């Protein structure tokens, strides 16, 4: 985030009476629950080696298709791999996929939206109309098309999902920037002689960032779901990668004998998506500068 340091010092000596941001977030039950699940996911992802009792790809860690037990908390799959370990390592992959895909959508989308709103005229029409064209196709379809061209792999799935998400971020950012641009404070800054960079990055960007953070958090769940769908179709993560979507897909063949093979990856995906969704909603509340005084 481009945070200006130039004038920040001017007001630093005066009193700061604002409630810390995190406090505002966790005061809401939804924020606390969402944040707790997301933190758990991050811990799982960071310390997968320490948490997982087995290697996620080691075959015959136990007998194939054993049901959940103390030795194998979530059972084993058809190759005898420990499901719990695979889910834990899967968290790492899932977060990676989500963050990279959203990172791609967010950065390109924000840039397009800001530039279109600020430049106006021909540039605006060109950028937004082409965005509209892409937007008229379903995200999954675009992602599929990209993977079809790039070839099936986890990396390509991330890129595909990221690019497919660009129009949504571009339009949100565009709308948000347009409304900020019309406000008097923006014109006052123009009148004070502010140049393009200052207007774009010190006034427009910081004021659209809260909106973008919220939709990125909500978009994370979307991206995770889309990537899982690609993997489920065999176009994303390839075996033996412990990706939740791919695991879900592999578990289909054994659904009758070993339902846990589909249940736990499915639950993991659902819980993650839910967590990011409610966290996103809570973030929107907490990031509203006018909401700070509310208790």
């Amino acid at each position, binding site marked *: 985030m481009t945070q200006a340091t130039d*004038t920040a010092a*001017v007001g630093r000596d*005066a009193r700061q009476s604002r409630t810390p941001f995190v406090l505002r977030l966790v005061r809401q039950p939804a924020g606390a629950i969402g944040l707790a699940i997301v933190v758990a996911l991050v811990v799982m992802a960071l310390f997968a080696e320490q948490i997982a009792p087995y290697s996620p790809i080691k075959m015959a860690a136990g007998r194939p298709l054993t049901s959940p037990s103390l030795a194998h908390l979530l059972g084993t799959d058809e190759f005898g791999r420990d499901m719990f370990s695979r889910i834990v390592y899967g968290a790492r992959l899932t977060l990676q996929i989500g963050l990279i895909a959203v990172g791609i959508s967010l950065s390109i989308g924000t840039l397009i939206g800001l530039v279109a709103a600020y430049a106006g005229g021909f540039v605006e029409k060109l950028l937004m109309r082409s965005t509209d064209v892409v937007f008229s196709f379903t995200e999954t379809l675009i992602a599929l098309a990209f993977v079809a061209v790039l070839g099936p792999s986890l990396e390509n799935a991330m890129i595909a999902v990221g690019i497919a998400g660009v129009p949504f971020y571009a339009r949100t950012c565009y709308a948000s920037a347009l409304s900020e641009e019309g*406000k008097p*404070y923006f014109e*006052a800054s123009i*009148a*004070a002689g502010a140049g393009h960079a200052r207007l774009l990055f010190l006034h427009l960007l910081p004021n659209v960032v809260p909106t973008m953070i919220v939709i990125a958090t909500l978009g994370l769940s979307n991206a995770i779901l889309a990537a899982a769908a690609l993997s489920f179709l065999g176009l994303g993560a390839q075996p033996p990668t412990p990706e939740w979507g791919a695991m879900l897909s592999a578990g289909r063949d054994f659904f009758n004998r070993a339902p846990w093979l589909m249940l736990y990856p499915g639950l993991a995906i659902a819980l993650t998506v839910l967590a990011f969704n409610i966290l996103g909603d809570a973030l929107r509340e907490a990031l509203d500068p006018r909401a700070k005084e509310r208790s």
Partner: protein
Amino acid sequence: MALVDISDLTIGFGAEATAPPVVDGVDLSIGKGEIVALVGESGSGKSMTALSIVGLLPERGRVRAGQILFGGKDLLTFGEAALRSVRGARIGMIFQEPMTSLNPVLTIGEQLVEALIVHEKLSKAESRNRAIAMLERTGIDNAERRLRQYPHEFSGGMRQRVMIAMMMALKPALLIADEPTTALDVTIQAQILDLLREMVRDLDTSLLLITHDMGVVAEMADRVVVMRDGKVVERGDCEAIFAAPQADYTRRLLAAVPTLDDPTRETTTTSFGPEVLRLEDVSRSFGGDGFFSRQAPLKAADGVTLTVREGETLALVGESGSGKSTLGRLAMRLEKPDGGRVVVAGEDITRLSGRGLRRVRRAIQMIFQDPYASLDPRFSIGRTIAEPMIIEGGASRSEVRERVRALLERAGLSASMAGRMPHELSGGQRQRVAIARALAVSPRIIVADEPTSALDVSVQAKILDLMIELQEAEALAYLFITHDLAVVRRIAHRVAVMRKGRIVELGAAADVLERPVHPYTRSLIAAAPVPDPARRGERHHWQPEAEPQSPDMAGEWCAVGDEHWILA
């Protein structure tokens, strides 16, 4: 017996221990056929008091004590169903923004007829006839055709008429009008107030009028109740309150109200410096160039020529849609003129762009109407004021900090405000910050677009005083855009009256306000409410029929006095 008798009403938000009440032990009674004005500044609790009568307090708002007797029964003991039968049928309400009280997806007819069917149990045909009759009574032409139109096809004044028509059709015993004319132009306001008075007289309705405008109070009220911080500070007959206010607060409130009888500012044409802003035959139109639209372009500015000299205030007066704000934006080059020239401090900025424009434009700064949107919500106050200096460059950090302190104090704020965020400030304080920011680049002229119309009168008076003081100290020029003639009187040296994109009258403030020549200026002045109940009814109404019908008002400039011109 009084129709409404409120006693010891106390309203608060949230838990009693933590939040002080917003309405604190208010007593209020309204007799049959009486007009009671509830007066106070924002936050005084006047709207809360009114809303509690109909049980429409906002979420978390609770009546903590008291009773509201309406026709002898305590409304506070009513359940939701019982209240609903009272609302509309027995107690009507009119709000400030009529667009929000009308359903945008239903035609006016459907809404009027529905209200009649629900409350009066009339047949459909009967309701229709009654609705037409009511619309006609409120002065809406072509009522039958109008019934089939949607709210957005009506102007603000028309929508307020529809609301009143709806109320008249239901013949409520009590009408609560919350700032019913605040969003309207003065000429329309005068008509709406007449309509309300007629309704009270003909239907023997009681009217609770909530307003901050002492002019409206003087025009309308039988009795006045003044509120402050949730408490009643004074009550009495309208004449008595205006003639001899007892409470300190009332006295200050009345003193702060600018009136058309205040002396205008001294104007000797020679006392001003060189010209700092010149608009030459400036034009700007909107629309008409769209691919799909065949509408004729709207001329927001149509060959306007104006000059403002150093140390002078030129007030630009007009009703909404007259193009006065567009003219201000053209002077700032926030809007590019279609034709003509804009000259700021001797330099033609019409064709400038980029760096050149940025340099020259620093001589002209702007103050905006909405104090909430005019400061970047993510910039601290200090950073906002420092920004123009940072852009200019060349000053060290400590110099900038020193200058921010000086500017804050100059604008009547304490230097410690620098660390605050905009949302922590009141409207008046924000407007002071906006003034400090405008001064930061030492401009020659400031374009002020309705800088006080979102503020309470007492705050407005202080902001105007500040602007005058700054002008005298630094020979600043102002292009002051407003719809409020009383404010014009307080601050302007010269006045330009604008209508449909053209200046129709231009001259010294005393000449234009006291000896208006153009019929439009006359109608504006006649419609302005006078805050003096003794002079009620002196107002002359402008008849729209009297207006010259030629659409583009082609005309010639004629001198009607010394430096006093009209378009005829």
